[in-house]
């Protein structure tokens, strides 16, 4: 059962081969067994999950069910869920029980899915290794001495270790795709504005986007069908017709034009990663695709642009965590300024503080034009590169991450090295494009490698088709970590 796809689980539930309560309990048991080893979940609440499962079972009796009814889905701890502790990986929110549901959460609730628990993450989604979480690092199920990637590392590890069938992530600079690659699962960051950000704790508002993480493209399509949709509470949410993201899964790939950006295949990528990615491209040729070399000349500026814009927005977004109304407040303080200083100094971890300081600096009087404004201009150039490229190709492919999962602590002292793990993913967020990662082989130390697929705006259905056809032809996505 734990290796079943969402489609199989849905069929089993509807055929009453298993109840939602039984299914939920079996995942809860597995979490109880493996989470101490992996630390993928911050919060599990069997009582609340099982209550939802019981309700789902009554829905089966009444017949009003959807594809995800009764299926336990884990939620990244960045999503506010009513009655659930919602920490965002931070001490700052160690005691914050949300009084309301994020839009994504209510979409799952309406679909009858079960909230299986809240997954671990880098603090406020700032990190690429899950080591910045206040609740301790997540371990990669393929090798527990290694990181799962970040920031959605808890979700990626949980899906890879079969602690859940699928789960949610969020992606600001690669936080869905990079951990998906490092844990050997599939993950999709939709076009900016496809999933409402309401109730998703903001890191960098103009880049943040929720998306599904699972074991196959087909599962991602079912997840996205639930997660996507206009929400009037998010002004950046896009008002579009509801789509069925499974509609194109089975289209043949004949004539598909795949763009390979020469900048992504230059120095910097590990040879093991290059080998797996090139093999995947060869597979696509077999499936009928043609290859076009393209150029994204400004993508080399993505990392510096991102590390101006994202911290700028974050420094302001995180101002509300001041110890006044909720969250952590220092136990002892003098005056008001002292309360702010101590609460924030004690409540935030080092990486969050670093980014708040960078962001505060780049927005400061006298520096704004040189940093923030300049970065915004380059951001537009980066997006234009993609627009140009899509005149020649239908999807763009390349590596998701320059290397496979690295060891815990390996990059701890060098933030710039850590930031470079997202070198292939960040441009996609800056342009607002959809991007995904699917497993395409194994590299050094038998660690998974991810293939990144970047689509044009609103081309999620095509990307899922492209990924699904690969997964019909290969079995990289069905490998599971052994010996847990």
């Amino acid at each position, binding site marked *: 059962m734990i290796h079943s796809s969402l489609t199989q689980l849905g069929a089993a539930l509807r055929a009453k081969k298993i109840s939602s309560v039984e299914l939920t309990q079996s995942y809860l048991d597995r979490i109880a067994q493996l989470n101490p080893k992996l630390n993928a979940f911050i919060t599990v609440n069997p009582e609340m999950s099982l209550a939802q499962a019981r309700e789902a079972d009554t829905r089966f009796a009444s017949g009003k069910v959807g594809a995800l009814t009764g299926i336990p889905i884990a939620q990244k701890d960045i*999503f*506010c869920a009513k009655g659930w502790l*919602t920490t*965002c990986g931070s001490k700052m*929110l160690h005691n*914050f029980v*949300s*009084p*309301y549901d*994020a839009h994504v959460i209510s979409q799952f609730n309406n679909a009858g899915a079960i909230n299986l628990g809240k997954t671990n993450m880098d603090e406020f989604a700032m990190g690429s290794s899950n080591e910045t979480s206040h609740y301790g690092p997540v371990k990669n199920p393929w090798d527990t001495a290694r990181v799962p990637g970040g920031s959605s590392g808890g979700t990626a590890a949980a899906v890879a270790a079969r602690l859940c069938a699928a789960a949610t992530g969020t992606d600001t600079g690669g936080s869905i795709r990079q951990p998906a690659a490092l844990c050997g699962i599939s993950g999709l960051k939709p076009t900016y504005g496809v999933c409402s*950000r*309401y*109730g*998703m*704790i*903001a890191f*960098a*508002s*103009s880049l943040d986007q929720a998306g599904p993480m699972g074991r196959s493209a087909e599962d991602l399509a079912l997840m996205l069908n639930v997660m996507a949709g206009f929400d*009037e*509470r*998010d*002004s*950046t949410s896009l008002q579009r017709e509801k789509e069925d993201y499974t509609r194109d899964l089975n289209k043949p790939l004949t004539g598909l034009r795949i763009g390979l950006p020469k900048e992504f295949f230059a120095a910097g990528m590990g040879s093991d990663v290059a080998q797996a990615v090139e093999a995947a491209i060869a597979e696509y040729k077999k499936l009928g695709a043609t290859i076009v070399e393209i150029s994204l000349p400004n993508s080399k500026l993505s990392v510096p642009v991102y590390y101006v814009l994202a911290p*700028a*927005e974050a*420094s*302001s977004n*995180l*101002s*509300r*965590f*001041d110890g*006044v*109304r*909720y969250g952590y407040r220092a136990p002892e303080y003098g005056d*008001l300024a002292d309360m*702010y200083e101590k609460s924030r100094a004690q409540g935030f971890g080092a990486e969050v503080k670093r980014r708040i300081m960078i962001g*505060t600096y780049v*927005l*400061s*009087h006298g520096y*704004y034009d040189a940093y*923030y404004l300049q970065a915004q201009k380059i951001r537009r150039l980066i997006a234009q590169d993609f627009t140009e490229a899509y005149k020649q190709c239908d999807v763009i492919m390349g590596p998701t991450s320059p290397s496979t999962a690295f060891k815990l602590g390996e990059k701890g002292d060098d933030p710039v090295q850590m930031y470079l793990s997202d070198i292939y993913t960040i441009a996609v967020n800056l342009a607002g494009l959809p991007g995904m990662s699917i497993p395409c082989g194994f590299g050094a130390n038998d660690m998974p490698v991810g293939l990144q697929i970047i689509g044009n705006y609103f081309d999620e259905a095509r990307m899922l088709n492209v990924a699904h056809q690969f997964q019909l032809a290969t079995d990289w996505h069905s490998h599971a970590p052994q010996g847990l």
Partner: protein
Amino acid sequence: MTWEIVIGLEVHTQLSTNTKIFSGASTAFGAEPNTQADAVSIALPGVLPVLNKGAVERAIKFGLATGSHIAPRSVFARKNYFYPDLPKGYQISQFDLPVVGQGALTIQVEPLSGNAKPYEKTVRITRAHLEEDAGKSMHGDFHGMTGIDLNRAGTPLLEIVSEPDMSSAAEAVAYAKTLHTLVRWIGICDGNMQEGSFRCDVNVSVRKPGQPLGTRREIKNLNSFKFMQQAIDYEVQWQIDTIENGGKVHQATILFNPDTGETRAMRSKEDAHDYRYFPDPDLLPLEISSEWIEQVRAMLPELQQQKYARFMIELGGDSGLSSSDIRFLTASREMADFFETVLAAVPKDAKMCANWIMGEVSAQLNRDGLDMAQCPITARQLGGMLQRIADGTISNSGAKEVFRTMWAEGGDADAVIEAKGLKQVSDSGAIEALVDEIIADNADKVAEYRSGKDKLFGFFVGLAMKASKGKANPAQLNDILKKKLEG
């Protein structure tokens, strides 16, 4: 050599929307603390702002009413600073691209002293931008701690910034009053200064004529016109004294203490915040189409100056209303609406309408401490009463009694006239009989009158009125009396 005073104003007007600028929480004043603080007002993690179109509509109204440029595209920006009553740690405001651009406001200045005459002046408006209000810190009894009330947090404000075009306290007060009238006139702000719906920051500097602008100090949060005048007078004198004594004025934010009549520095420029403005990524740029502007224009009432001009043409002139009458009757939207409703009942008697409103109605309102909106007699009711004067049903003195009764007890004029029996006697037979009786009873006085003592006419009128219990139609009585006495 004299000093020249330079004053510019920043006025925060609370817009009269039912809900907040970025959420559906109520904006009603005076609720229990934090009962109107929803998730957005509290700034819970993950919540997002959604712009209230009603606030934008009110900003457009203001722009149209002042002939200002209305930006087809404006941008909301975050103004970052920490304060406990600012829940997000930033205020959503507008910075380099405000919704309303340059415009102007014409003011009537009443000089405060001397025999100087009132004059007209045009003050340029620099800009007006939308922003959210903060909550309130409450330093009451909280066991030595400070309470926070976030009911006001997120209330929509339009901050209206003028050019430094005013050169006296009188001009500043005239500008503020004109603005106050305007925002109420076009229905975008209730203008309640006690509740903080209309708050003024005044920038003051002094210089010698011909010299560059002096260093300004900003008097914050003045919520009465009287305080504004006192604060400016004090501040101007303080700046002049400081300079004349060899000192220097430093840029600062200051507060006015109404108890002492003095101003005092709150913070100097050195501790000025770096607000780190940047465009709010949670909100799209605000786009205003010309269609939207035209829709709002169609909703705009006739403005004060337009109404004044129209009344001057339609109702002014030698036998009509004076310019000061019309100024009085167009002093506020309520007043003008009241007058026009009354006038609709007796369209040929504008002067009578004006006299009643400026006389009895205003006097009673003053006496009872009420404003026009609280007038116990509706304009329609007053119009009904004036119709009865015009058609001779009641006399002027009878009307005063009807008016007093309506004021105290309510009801329409006709019902009061009926109940009190105030209907005038216009039956000539009845009046003749009455006059005949008086002539018969006062033969000596009649003889005196007929021998040329014309002044006795009033004596006869008095007797006749008394005999009719005040109900005789005075014009008719005059005619009949004159005829019979001379008969």
